[in-house]
């Protein structure tokens, strides 16, 4: 309380402060306007969208656009596919990253650090170097055009492994020794002691990999060509090509596509921020 009062006292209205706010507002507007327009035109009629000069609101809120989406496209399929792929990737990436991260941080075996260095080195390899031969591999297994082609290669993440290792290094060794003395084997030590401690890092990784998969456009573009297998980004892109004149419906579909990540962001802003900052750590 006292602190708050003090802070209030020191804030004066100065020219610098006004300029700061004007600049920040201008920046915020630049970031927001496209989204506001997306939202507003999702409630407009077809003619209102093309009005010039552009208007913010249409005559009436047309909720119909939202109901028309699934009538015109396989939107429900896209959404379901996106959820399937995201769930798989988030769960398995967290699990494989956490176990491997723990091994790299806390367990000893010959060649451990060499293998980890290899992991680190491949983090800077462009994704496109592996995508061609991964496509050929999937095509050999007959998995092209199935969701498996999106899920399997994303099961393991070098970034996730790195992130989890960075956390597990901070766990005190005494804690792990104590668990061992109590009769835990290495896996139960990891699962019962270290894993629960890593909650916030796990949240960060989960949200990061969710955002990555949910928004991914390139991978589905490469692997999928059956409409019914499309994920949301690919589905949206194809909707635009197929029916480019119906902007309101397309905008409504876009709003729905953004919502899950937006909701995740609102509820876990700090985990997001931590993820960005962790991605900025080098070692």
């Amino acid at each position: 309380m006292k602190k708050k009062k003090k802070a209030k006292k020191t804030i004066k209205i100065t020219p610098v402060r006004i300029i700061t706010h004007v600049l920040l507002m201008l920046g915020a507007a630049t970031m927001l306007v496209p989204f506001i327009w997306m939202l507003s035109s999702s409630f407009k009629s077809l003619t209102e969208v093309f009005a010039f000069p552009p208007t913010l609101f249409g005559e009436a809120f047309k909720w119909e656009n939202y109901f028309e989406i699934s009538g015109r496209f396989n939107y429900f399929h896209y959404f379901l596919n996106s959820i399937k792929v995201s769930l798989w990737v988030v769960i398995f990436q967290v699990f494989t990253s956490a176990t491997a991260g723990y091994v790299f941080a806390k367990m000893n075996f010959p060649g451990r650090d060499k293998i980890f260095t290899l992991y680190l080195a491949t983090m800077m390899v462009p994704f496109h170097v592996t995508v061609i031969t991964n496509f050929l591999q999937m095509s050999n297994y007959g998995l092209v055009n199935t969701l498996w082609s999106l899920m399997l290669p994303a099961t393991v993440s070098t970034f996730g492994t790195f992130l989890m290792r960075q956390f597990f290094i901070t766990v005190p060794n005494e804690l792990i020794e104590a668990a061992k003395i109590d009769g835990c084997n290495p896996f139960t030590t990891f699962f019962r002691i270290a894993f629960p401690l890593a909650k916030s890092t796990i949240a960060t990784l989960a949200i990061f990999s969710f955002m990555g998969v949910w928004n991914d456009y390139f991978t589905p573009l490469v692997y999928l060509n059956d409409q019914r297998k499309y994920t949301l980004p690919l589905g949206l892109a194809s909707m635009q090509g197929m029916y480019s004149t119906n902007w309101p419906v397309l905008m409504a579909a876009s709003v729905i596509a953004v919502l899950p990540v937006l909701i995740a962001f609102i509820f876990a802003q700090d985990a997001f921020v931590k993820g960005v900052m962790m991605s900025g750590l080098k070692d």
Partner: protein
Amino acid sequence: MKNNKTRKISKLKNDSKWAALMLTPNILGFLMFMLIPMVATFALSFTKYDMLRPPKFIGFNNYIKMFKDPIAREVTLNTIIYTVITVPTGMAISLLLAVLLDQKIALKRFYRACYFLPAISSMVVVSIVWQWIYNPEYGILNYFLSLIGINGPKWLQDARTSLVAIAIVGIWKNAGYNMLLFLSGLQGISTSYYEAATLDGASKWQQFKYVTLPLLKPTTFFIFIMSIIGSFQVFDQVMLMTKGGPGRSSSVLVHYLYQNAFQYFDMGYACALAYLLFFLVLILTLFNMRAEKKMGEIY
């Protein structure tokens, strides 16, 4: 004593077994989808392969073809131009926003969320909206330009502006992400430096120039490297908004790679292009690491 030692060794062996077991899923995925594909791509870059007939070894022909290919030259140049436009401008904007936000200021969380909104949205949604913004007939950008008396260009449909238009979207989308990285760098600078500078009578601008910028160098370097690597791999907005056109005016390396692999099914050549990309990124990274090491010696 001896017993103790053998017990220790057997325990270590036991530990190794557990470690191997716990690492298996990860290592397996890493080998199957990362390391082996990397090596296989390199091997395939020396072959002609169309997926119908088995790969045929042709030595360095793909690489020779690449150096003679005017399209490869054009898309590489476009990639470099895109990088030169986006990286410095984007970094300057992100740094400005971060410095402004790194004060006692109302609505901080609101601003941060606004700037981060483009970063969490998919490029598909972003591209759909920006196509409307850029539309020469009813888009909002040319409408605003017309208010100040400028007759706006055709943006995405004009070969002279298409790459710039794509770059603007790239800057807009990444500004918030880089701002956050700068912000965490700024918060790592101890306030005592500023207090000392204020005592010495340094103005705000001098403080920024002589305290903030030098101490922020490691962060700046990191963002610089990551931005360059990122912009060399730009693809989504190109594919979504222009498909590389008009002509080849906005086509970039990854776009050409995608076309060769998945539209023309010239897998060998696409693999060679992938290694060109890898090589360029590697050179930039090594160059930057060396520069950073030098910087470390100065401090």
